[in-house]
């Protein structure tokens, strides 16, 4: 409880320091533009070809919107992870270690990045526009499931990124690896996974849990679970998978932290 209270105070302070800089609002706009070009690609293709893997424009847009929201939701609190390489190399981590608060909480609240709110805004716009076009029967239950799925999707991405970041304690440089993983989530995750064939789907479900970010929950909401190679129940469980992945990744992070050697020692 105390940790959460302090975390909120620190996050508010970080937010205040960020909004001092006007250019940060440009960063937010940049996030929106960048993600929109990804969507423009899909839009131009589908305007010309009609469908991809049997999914209509509205359905792919819905999938894309879900993925983008989940992306924004993971980046908003966890963006500071991207600086971990430099923080370790410059010995800044030592400062965090001597303070009486969870290391991860301190790290994440030491600086915020407003660009991620651009991702969330873009995701919400695309998602709501797509909801109007795609054939979805909305009910209180499905709205609740969507909210859970977005949180779960964000947790899946957090888990993978946190696990990769934890390796930094040993090998000191994982920034490029993490950027590459992020790239895979952003590009491969925007399409119905059906198009990657059986082995591709297997890899993107059980090796890299990308399917749980948006594709599996989207098939539930779009009533497309019969096209899956896995049981429909697995798709319904997607939010729980996010929680499980995150717990495992956090344990891994704590274990790797024991291998931390301060810079210059």
């Amino acid at each position, binding site marked *: 409880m105390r940790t959460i209270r302090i975390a909120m105070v620190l996050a508010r302070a970080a937010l205040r320091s960020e909004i001092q*800089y006007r*250019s*940060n609002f*440009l*960063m937010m*706009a*940049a*996030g929106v*533009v*960048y993600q*929109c*070009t990804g969507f*423009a*690609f899909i839009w*131009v*293709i*589908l*305007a*010309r*070809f009609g*469908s*991809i*893997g049997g999914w209509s424009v509205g359905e792919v847009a819905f999938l894309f919107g879900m993925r983008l929201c989940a992306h924004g939701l993971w980046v908003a609190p966890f963006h500071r992870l991207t600086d971990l390489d430099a923080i370790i190399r410059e010995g800044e981590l030592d400062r965090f270690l001597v303070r009486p608060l969870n290391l991860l909480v301190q790290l994440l609240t030491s600086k915020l990045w407003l*660009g991620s709110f651009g991702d969330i805004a873009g995701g919400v716009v695309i998602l709501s526009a797509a909801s109007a076009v795609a054939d979805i029967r909305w009910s209180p239950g499905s709205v609740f499931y969507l909210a859970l799925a977005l949180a779960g999707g964000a947790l899946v991405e957090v888990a993978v990124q946190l696990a990769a970041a934890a390796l930094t304690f040993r090998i000191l*440089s994982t*920034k*490029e*690896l993490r*950027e*590459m993983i992020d*790239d*895979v989530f952003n*590009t*491969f995750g925007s*399409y119905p996974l059906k*198009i*990657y064939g059986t082995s*591709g789907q297997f890899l993107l479900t059980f090796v890299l849990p990308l399917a749980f970010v948006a594709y599996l929950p989207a098939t539930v909401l779009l009533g497309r679970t019969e096209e899956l190679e896995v049981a429909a129940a697995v798709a319904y469980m997607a939010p729980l998978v996010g929680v499980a992945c995150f717990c495992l990744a956090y344990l891994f992070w704590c274990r790797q932290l024991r291998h931390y050697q301060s810079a210059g020692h």
Partner: protein
Amino acid sequence: MTTQLTAMRVRLLKYHGIAAIGSRVALTYRASLLMRLVAVALQVYLLSVVWRAVYGARDSVSGVALDTMITYATLASVQTWLVTASSSSLLPQRIREGRIATDLCGPVGIFEQIILLQVGQAAVAAPPAVLVLLVASAAERLSAPASAPAVILYLISVVLGFAINLLIVSLLGMTAFWTVEVSGLMVIYQGISQFLAGALVPLWFMPGWLRATTEVLPFQALVHTPVSLYLGRLTGWGAVHAVAVQMCWVLIFLALGNLAWKRCIHRVVMYGG
């Protein structure tokens, strides 16, 4: 005459030296290069899967065969990677850190320095890019270049596209003299330019009004023009015209760059001084 030649030789030696530093910087961060290479290889694979899926049972759409499309996507991805690999302009960083002061004292102009450093970086990235192309052509049925002249025009066109991007990025980087922070602007530029360059979707699939817009903008010269030359979709006078347009853009941005630079130099403000 001879003194002029020696002066030229000295200048070229300096240029070569700076470009070599750029190459060494790129080689120092090998892990970064490797990971970005993996990312581009994955993108090439992804695009071939996506295009195969959208084509479905059709062999050709709007007169574009699937093989041609996959060749386009592969070349475009690798080229975009190569052309934009170095597009995080070095200028803003140097302004922020105040290093611009020492840079300005150097024997080679900073504008030239920055361009040369990036040329050096691109030179390191080029062999792996060719490697990705070779692997891709072994894995997929890529179309061969349309003809021998097409290959030559393609190579010239790629270099011109690289030059145009470098000049635009340098121009954008100069706004850092006023705003210090330009990373947002750079991301916006990258997103918009890649889309309008045909890096993601070939321009021939774009709706009419968008296609007409791209015609008058410089961006199609970055990706779409070279690949169209390779595939033989631009031939004869059309090809010559396209390359001439690229050259015009290089000249326009060179002129703009020089003009802007003269103004920038008056804006140098040092922290604490």
